[in-house]
């Protein structure tokens, strides 16, 4: 079958700017995008730089953006992306500096992973033999341990795009792997660190990492889990915590959301600059007739909803 592949090129040594180069080639029906790229490099253009190794979605080397979203190109068949032979756009991973063509500098990625101290920290002396944990106490970590560090989630993370200090989905998923490991004794310290700026509360909950992860690690869901764990450990002095708590309270009390109160409690009653800022927004909204109702709406059967909320919240504790 025919394939048209549009590759983003960049070669800083020859002082070039980024540009797209189109390659047309014949490939096998069963070809992956990686097969096509290797064919391009071998038959059409030896200057194309790309990184790959195992070709079986185990090593995590060949993360790239295909038609705008990150994928392992060895796991992505051409025919699934362009059944009619449409043009396929291949770019290097996002949110990382490009070295050449499709090869990115993974150093920032590894530095973030190092930042979360990705190793076991037991309190007591380690046993001489194996460190045995029961099967049941580890099952919740199976998916997250599947991570192959390909960088797909980091590439498409919408929070990292605007703030490179954010620890990011891959490193946070790795952090969860140790926070939730029964053999690790530093969960509290880890959560304390992750609860600070650039940690778990900076995630936008946009699901981009969950969507692109080729291994089902679902980093965002791990981040949400850690938010809850941090709260349970008593780290409560964050806007994030106040926001979540106020949200649950509002639904419990009214069945619906009390937007005005949610904003006030999240900003915090002692955050004077935040309150002034909010007052201006409120005033603007008021002029336009769109201030959230000051006396909040109640759902019709809010008593029933309250019962459910109280019951399930209590059960959790």
């Amino acid at each position, binding site marked *: 079958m025919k394939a048209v592949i549009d590759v983003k090129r960049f070669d800083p040594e020859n002082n070039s700017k980024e540009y797209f180069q189109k390659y047309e080639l014949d490939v096998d029906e069963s070809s992956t995008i990686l097969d096509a790229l290797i064919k391009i490099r071998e038959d059409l253009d030896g200057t194309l730089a790309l990184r790959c190794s195992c070709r079986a979605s185990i090593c995590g080397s060949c993360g790239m953006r295909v038609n*705008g979203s990150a994928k392992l190109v060895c796991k992505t068949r051409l025919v699934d992306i362009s059944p009619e032979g449409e043009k396929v756009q291949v770019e290097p991973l996002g949110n990382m500096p490009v070295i050449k063509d499709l090869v990115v500098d993974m150093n920032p990625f590894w530095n973030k992973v190092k930042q979360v101290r990705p190793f076991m920290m037991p309190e007591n002396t380690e046993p001489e033999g194996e460190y045995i944990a029961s099967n049941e106490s580890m099952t919740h970590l199976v998916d997250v341990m599947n991570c192959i560090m390909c960088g797909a989630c980091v590439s498409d993370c*919408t*929070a990292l*795009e*605007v*703030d490179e200090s*954010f620890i990011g989905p891959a490193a946070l998923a790795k952090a969860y792997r140790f926070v939730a490991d029964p053999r690790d004794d530093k969960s509290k310290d880890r959560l304390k660190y992750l609860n600070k700026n650039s940690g778990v*509360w*900076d995630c*936008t*909950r*946009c*699901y*981009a990492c*969950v*969507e692109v992860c080729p291994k089902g690690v679902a980093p965002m869901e791990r981040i949400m889990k850690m*938010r*809850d764990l941090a709260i349970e450990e008593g780290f409560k002095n*964050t806007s994030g915590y106040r*926001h*979540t*708590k106020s*949200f*649950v309270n509002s*639904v419990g009390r009214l*069945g*619906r*959301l009390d*937007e005005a109160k*949610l904003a006030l*409690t999240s900003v915090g*009653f*002692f955050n*004077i600059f935040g*309150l*002034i800022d909010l*007052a201006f927004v409120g*005033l*603007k*909204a*008021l002029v*336009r*007739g*769109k*201030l*959230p*109702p*000051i*006396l*909040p*709406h109640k*759902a*019709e*059967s809010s008593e*029933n*909803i309250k*019962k*459910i909320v109280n019951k*399930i919240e209590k059960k*959790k504790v």
Partner: protein
Amino acid sequence: MTVKKYAFYPGCVARGGAPELYQSSLLVLDKLGIETIELDKAACTGAGVLQEKNQKLGDVLNIRTLALAEEMNLPIITICSTCQGVISQANHRVLKSPEYLEEINAELKEEGLEYKGSTDVKHLLWILIEDIGLDELKKTFKKELKGFNFAPFYGCYIVRPSDALGFSENPERQHSLDMVINSTGASVTDFSGKTKCCGFPILLINQKNSLKMVSNHTGEAKDKGADAMVTPCPLCHLNLDGYQGKARKANRGDKGDLPIIHLPQLLGLAMGIEPYRLGFARHIVSTKDFISSISPGERHSDPQNFNIAMLLGMMGFGSLIFALITAIGAFFVLRAIYIYEWGDNSFTHYIDTCSFEGIYFIGKYICSILGFLGF
């Protein structure tokens, strides 16, 4: 056109911070021949926030909403991307696992509800394409929007995670907003941010990052020639519209000048509904120029919206804020004196950690009197 009936789940924001969405939706649904019964008993979906604390609680509330609709034998129509996503995810989870559904149903038993899995939730955007059809939709249009460029902004929860949103059975859902914009005769402005996060979920947590997102998306769309941005998500609207001025000034040094319009407002314009009835005056980013370019000479704002009572209310609100700021200022001065005099932090620590629900309720009491007088 045959009448289609749905259980209507408007979501909290449409009834709160984005009333123009609710009012325009009702007008548009009427023109589309859609009959709705509002789900007054349904709870808030939790918008993913509640889920991060307690996913089961979120699932129970959303399955309860589905069960309420199932009782009426109707599918749910929503006008909020986030509600769509969150209810879809809950539905996806229980349909995947009968044991989990049983567990959830056990919680609903007390209320006499049970979810069997026979109903579904669909955003108006999908209903336009799947239940009404673009050809039928075009028949309701009276005005060609040719020559206008609209940038589609989907919002996260209506595009991800795709396995919960039925994209494999209905692949056109991925481009649904582009398709609807095209059907009005207008052109789509393609830009890289269209399925990215608007920043709203972290607005109150990390405003700097949130505003950068607003500025990136609206700025890019503007640079690419968009006349307005269309979104099916009222939460995105709150951020892209409400904070655009501040965001653009801080990050690009220009003005927030890209009108952000709700999907039903776009449909309403194409259907020839008068702009003032669609609530265009209720936007923070002015839609005046945009509306006068689409319907020259048409009234833009509803004169009833602004009256003396409202002005009084505003003045009251202003003085309340002033009083609040003074009170907080005084508190800080006293606190500083206290620390200086006694050098002990325990008192201030107590004040910082205790809940100030009290202040809030006094404020609310005053506000409600003002509200009674003003609105």
